[in-house]
């Protein structure tokens, strides 16, 4: 069996691995050369990111590789615009997390884990067969779990344990889903053709639907969609802040990429009768539950990271919302929304980090942010912008555009009742973020936490992220157009 092999397309996934290997080698040779390692990791990520650019600009090229020969040709790697966008975002957000960890403190373990998870994420969004999909998804997940646990704190261990148990069960579900899929379609690829064939037979159709639902359940954990979200608040608050940022950005992007891969075959059957109601229903349940639970819970939080964690849950609902349409536009919309969310989330986490540094004992209560906008305009401004984007209020226009983007496919698919639920969630969401926003604009208090001495990296991430948000707010097409 011969495969086509376009190394250029695979480079985004390979380069981080190469950097990983190099780091291990260098570490073995020169254990003290840590800065070199960090540079290597950064370089690996940047180079990989650069490799995704052609996918964003070249439009006619199908960018498929790892294809078996015709007539039975199937490709295991699809590097189209949507994929490339997600890959770029995964790589850059990992880079941002690396910066948050800070150059001085990043140890070899962090570097290796980050690189591994980045390459896993990059690969999973391009995967078109179940084997690659399953493996790379785990590659994207497992190092993150380790990163959470790799931390000598009781709470961190607890958080890691929570994350681990959930992820183990989810893995079980993923494998079950895979098995069901193969049983239903007889095909290990995630393509419309195979699904369409199975759809013709009622028994197989049922099984394929069930398979997708189970896969969905397994993936929902990574997205922290309700009811697979329970790890989110615990882990995000107890783990190191940069890793929480990773979970909220890069990890989410990988998850949505993986989900898009699973749902893509449904293009072929969405207009058939009977349609894939099971999948739509499952998605709707996840969407509605996540939106409502997440916002309602976030509304009650006073600890900022916990608030962000619950808002992650809520945003998962928004990410899933456009997918309920089961259309190309819906998938693109989900990607765009995730992109916006990831940037805004990163900015928020970076700002929190810039305020608290590595000291968790300061108490990351909302009250500590009183008057931040006047006390510390840069951080406060970045945080405020991120919150506005998350809330979807101008001047964070991109947040609003993202909401429009997310609502559009659902509305077009006739799911306007879900859209009405989204309205409620959006308003509650505004209440959540405005609560924090209001604090930023309050009178500065005296007992605010002291500014950490070294926070250039965090601040830099926050500011670059803000810049992205500002530019995207002025010209949303730059972001929205990436995926199409």
């Amino acid at each position, binding site marked *: 069996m011969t495969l086509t092999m376009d190394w250029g397309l695979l480079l985004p996934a390979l380069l981080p691995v190469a950097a990983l290997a190099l780091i291990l080698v260098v570490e073995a040779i020169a254990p003290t050369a840590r800065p070199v390692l960090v540079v290597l990791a950064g370089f690996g990520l940047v180079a990989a990111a650069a490799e995704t650019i052609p996918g964003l600009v070249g439009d006619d090229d199908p960018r498929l590789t790892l294809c078996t020969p015709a007539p039975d040709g199937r490709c295991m790697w699809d590097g189209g615009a949507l994929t490339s966008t997600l890959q770029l975002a995964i790589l850059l957000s990992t880079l941002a997390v690396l910066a948050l960890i800070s150059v001085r403190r990043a140890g070899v373990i962090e570097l290796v884990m980050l690189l591994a998870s980045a390459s896993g994420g990059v690969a999973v969004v391009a995967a078109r067969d179940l084997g690659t999909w399953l493996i*790379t998804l785990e590659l994207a997940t497992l190092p993150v779990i380790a990163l959470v646990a790799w931390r000598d704190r009781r709470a961190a261990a607890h958080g890691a344990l929570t994350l681990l148990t959930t992820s183990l069960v989810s893995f079980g579900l993923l494998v079950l889903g895979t098995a069901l899929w193969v049983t239903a379609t007889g095909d290990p690829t995630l393509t419309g053709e195979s699904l369409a064939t199975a759809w013709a037979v009622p028994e197989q159709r049922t099984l394929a639907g069930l398979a997708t639902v189970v896969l969905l359940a397994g993936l929902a954990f990574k997205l922290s969609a309700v009811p697979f979200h329970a790890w989110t608040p615990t882990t995000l608050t107890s783990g190191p802040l940069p890793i929480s940022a990773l979970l909220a950005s890069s990890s989410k992007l990988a998850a949505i990429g993986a989900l898009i891969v699973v749902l893509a075959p449904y293009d072929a059957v969405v207009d058939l009768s009977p349609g894939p109601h099971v999948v739509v229903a499952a998605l709707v349940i996840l969407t509605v539950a996540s939106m409502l639970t997440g916002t309602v819970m976030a509304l009650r939080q006073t600890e900022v990271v916990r608030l962000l964690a619950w808002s992650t849950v809520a945003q998962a609902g928004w990410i899933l919302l456009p997918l309920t349409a089961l259309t190309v536009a819906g998938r693109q919309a989900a990607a765009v929304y995730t992109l916006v969310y990831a940037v805004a989330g990163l900015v928020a986490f970076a700002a929190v980090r810039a305020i608290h540094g590595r000291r968790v004992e300061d108490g990351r209560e909302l009250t500590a942010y009183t008057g931040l906008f006047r006390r510390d305009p840069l951080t406060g401004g970045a945080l405020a912008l991120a919150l506005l984007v998350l809330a979807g209020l101008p001047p964070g226009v991109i947040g609003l555009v993202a909401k429009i983007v997310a609502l559009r496919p659902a509305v077009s698919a006739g799911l306007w009742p879900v859209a009405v639920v989204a309205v409620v969630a959006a308003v509650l969401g505004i209440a959540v973020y405005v609560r924090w926003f209001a604090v930023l604009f309050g009178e500065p208090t005296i007992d605010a936490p002291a500014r950490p001495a070294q926070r250039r990296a965090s601040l830099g991430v926050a500011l670059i992220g803000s810049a992205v948000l500002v530019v995207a707010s002025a010209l949303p097409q730059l972001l929205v157009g990436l995926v199409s």
Partner: protein
Amino acid sequence: MTSLDLAFAACGALAVVAGLLAVSTRQVVHAALWLVVALLGVAGCLLVLGHELVALVLVLVYVGAIVVLVLFALMLTRAPIGPDLVHAVPAWRRVLAGLAGAATTALLLAALLPLADGAVQRREISNKAVATELFGTWVWPFEALSVLLLAALIAALAVSRGAGAGVDTSSDRLLARLGHVDPAEGRSDVSQTGKKSKDGSGEEAR
């Protein structure tokens, strides 16, 4: 009903019964051992289905490695040899769990059984064919799998050794010298650090 069916039924029954015991026994070590039996049963099933390689790998990797690890872990976490009273769960939870399991089984049966009508010819799968495909078509995920294993190895090592134990070396040693951190536990002295960071000379300044 063919002989193959019979063989499969035997192995399957073994696997299911052992599995039931594995999830229901109160003795933790027994649970692990029943798992071994169940996995052997599964391997038998796979053999009957004609996938020797998979069956073999299952036995090797699972029974040979994983269950041993599990047993070690049980020991290290001071699991009792007898019934595990610390982690006993109330009866209602058992019932609920049983119901959840039964529901899952029922659902899967309802979805799967309509598909399995009649007998089919068993297909022998040669290891060569598997190897060809594995290193031909599936080479990319195979490589990814190796990265995953590498990452898991490093992760497991790092996690089990803990952050304080030699990886994040320089600063921790420094800390230890300054007396804020107990190097063995990798924890800093709480109150002092807390106070110190209040006046801005926190650890970043170190």
